[in-house]
C-alpha cells in the first residue's frame, strides 16, 4: 500500500499525487490518500470511478478525510468497517445527516422500557457503516452524554467514526450536569438551529 499525504494541497494536486502513486504501484494495490476537504474527496472518487477502481472514503474530521483507492483488486483497506463507506458512482455528494436526541427516552411508554429502547438505538447507530455527521442532545437527552449514562461507550465509537456530538449547554445547566459531560462538546441554541437548517436529513428516534 502507498500512503499519499495531500493535506493542504489545492485541487488538482491531490489527484495528481494519487495518479503518481498509482503509477508507482505498477499493477494492483491500494493507495490511501489524506486530504483536508470534501471537494478533494469528490474529485478523487470521480477519478476512481472513471478508471473503474474501487474506492472508499472515511471522514476523520472536518479537515481530514482518507480516500482509499483499490487498483485492480487488492484489499481495499484494513480500517474498521464502522468508519468505512463504499461509495456508489451516483452518490459522490456527502449527505449531512443529523440525529436529534431530545429526551432520555425513546417514544412515549413505560419509563424504564423507553430508556432501554433509546440505549438500543444508540448502540445500533454506532454499528452503521456511515455515521451521522452530527448528533445533537438537548433537554433530558443530555443525560445520555453525561456521567451515569449507559451509552457513553457507544457514543465514543460514533465520535471516533467521525460523528460530532453536541450537548445543549443550557440543558446541561438546567439538570445540573455541566461538570459531568463525558463525551462530545457543549453547544448553544444558535448553533443547534444552524446545524438543523443546514442538514440534508434530520433523524429523531
Amino acid at each position, binding site marked *: 500500500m502507498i500512503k499519499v499525504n495531500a493535506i493542504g494541497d*489545492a*485541487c*488538482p*494536486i491531490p*489527484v*495528481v499525487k494519487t*495518479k503518481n502513486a498509482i503509477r508507482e504501484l505498477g499493477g494492483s494495490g491500494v493507495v490511501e490518500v489524506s486530504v483536508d*476537504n470534501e*471537494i*478533494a474527496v*469528490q*474529485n478523487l472518487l*470521480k*477519478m476512481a470511478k*472513471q478508471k473503474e477502481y474501487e474506492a472508499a472514503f472515511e471522514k476523520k474530521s472536518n479537515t481530514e478525510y482518507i480516500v482509499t483507492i483499490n487498483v485492480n483488486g487488492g484489499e481495499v483497506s484494513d480500517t474498521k468497517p464502522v468508519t468505512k463507506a463504499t461509495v456508489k458512482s451516483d452518490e459522490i*455528494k456527502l449527505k449531512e445527516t443529523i440525529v436529534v436526541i431530545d429526551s432520555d427516552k425513546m417514544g412515549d411508554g413505560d419509563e424504564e422500557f423507553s430508556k432501554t429502547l433509546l440505549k438500543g438505538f444508540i448502540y445500533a447507530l454506532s454499528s452503521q457503516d456511515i455515521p451521522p455527521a452530527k448528533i445533537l442532545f438537548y433537554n433530558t437527552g443530555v443525560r445520555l452524554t453525561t456521567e451515569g449514562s449507559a451509552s457513553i461507550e457507544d457514543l465514543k465509537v460514533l465520535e471516533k467514526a467521525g460523528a460530532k456530538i453536541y450537548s445543549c449547554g443550557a440543558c446541561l445547566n438546567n439538570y445540573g450536569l455541566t461538570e459531568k459531560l463525558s463525551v462530545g462538546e457543549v453547544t448553544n441554541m444558535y448553533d443547534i438551529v444552524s446545524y438543523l437548517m*443546514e442538514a440534508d436529513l434530520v433523524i429523531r428516534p
Partner: protein
Amino acid sequence: MEKLYCKGGGCTAKLGAGILSHILERLPKQNFDENLMVGFDAKDDAAVYKLTDDIAFVQTLDFFPPMVEDPYTFGQIAAANALSDIYAMGGEVKTALNIVCFPQSSDLNILGEIMRGGLEKVKEAGGVLAGGHSIDDTDVKYGLSVTGIVNPNKIYSNNTGKAGDRLILTKRLGVGIICTAARIGEADEDTLNEAVDSMRTLNKYACDISKKYDIHACTDITGFGFLGHLMEMMGDDKSCEVYAKQIPVFEAAKALADEFLITAGGQRNRNYVGENVIFEDVPFAMEEILFDPQTSGGLLLAVGKEEADALLNELKEAGMPAAIVGEIRERENTAIKVADK
C-alpha cells in the same frame, strides 16, 4: 520578467454558488426602491438602477487572484472579466475604478504592470479609469469596479429567454482547466497562450453585434461554469437542451480533463447544479468542461430561432468561435438536458 505567484486564481477562486445563495437568502430584506431594476436577488450579472426613462446605470465589480504568471496579462484578463458584466447586461462602459490587494514589501513594478494591463482594457472598452483603492495584503488580487449605462428598455436580463430560443455561446470553454494544468506544468505554452487570448478578449465585440438583434436573455460565463450560469438562465420556468458536440471548447482542455486536472471550483459547480442537469452519453471530459469555472468567459445569448443564424454568422465573421449550443424549451422535469449531438 517579474512573475506572480499563482495558486488557483481567476474565477476558480470564487466562493461556491451554493454557499453564496445560502448567505444571501439570510440577509434582511431592504426597502423597495422602484428604480432598482436589477438587484442581487435576481442573481444577474450586474446591478441596474434607472435614472431617467432612457438611462439606467449598470454597476459591477469583480476581482480575483492571478491565474497567469505574467502581471501585465493578468491585469488585462482581470479587467476584461470585470468589464464583461456590463456587456452581459447589454450596457456600455463609462468609468472604472481599480481594486488592488498587493504585498507592499514586494516589487511594486509588478503592480505597475498589472495596472497597465487593466488600463489598456478599460481604454479598449471605451471607458475611463477614474480612481481606485489599494490594500496591503499577503496575496495579490486585482480587478475593477465598473459603471456603465444602458437604456432601461433594452437591458439583457439573464433569465428572460423564451421557449424556442436558440442559445449562442461566443467563446470556447475550458480555460479554468487549462490554467490549472499550466500551474502545475501539465499544459504546454501554446495551449496556455490560446486560453490567455480568449480570456483577454473583451465581450464588447460580441455585445455590439448582438445589439442589432432582439436578444431575449444574456449572461456571461464565469465562475459558475457553463452549466451553473445556464441553470440561472433557465430560472424555474424554462428548460433547455444543450448540444454537447456543438459547444466551442479548447481541444487541449478535453485531454487535460481526461487526466483529471480538474479544479475544486468545477466540482463545487457540479454540486451546485446537482440534479438540475441530465447527461445523455456525454463523455466525462465534456461533463467536466461544462462545469469548469471560466475566467472572462464568453456571452451566452438567447435569441429567437428566426434571427439565430444571422447573429451567429455575424459573430463568426468578426472572428469569434461562436456556435449555437442549444435551445430553450417549455419547462420539463429537469432544467437542462445535455445531449451528445
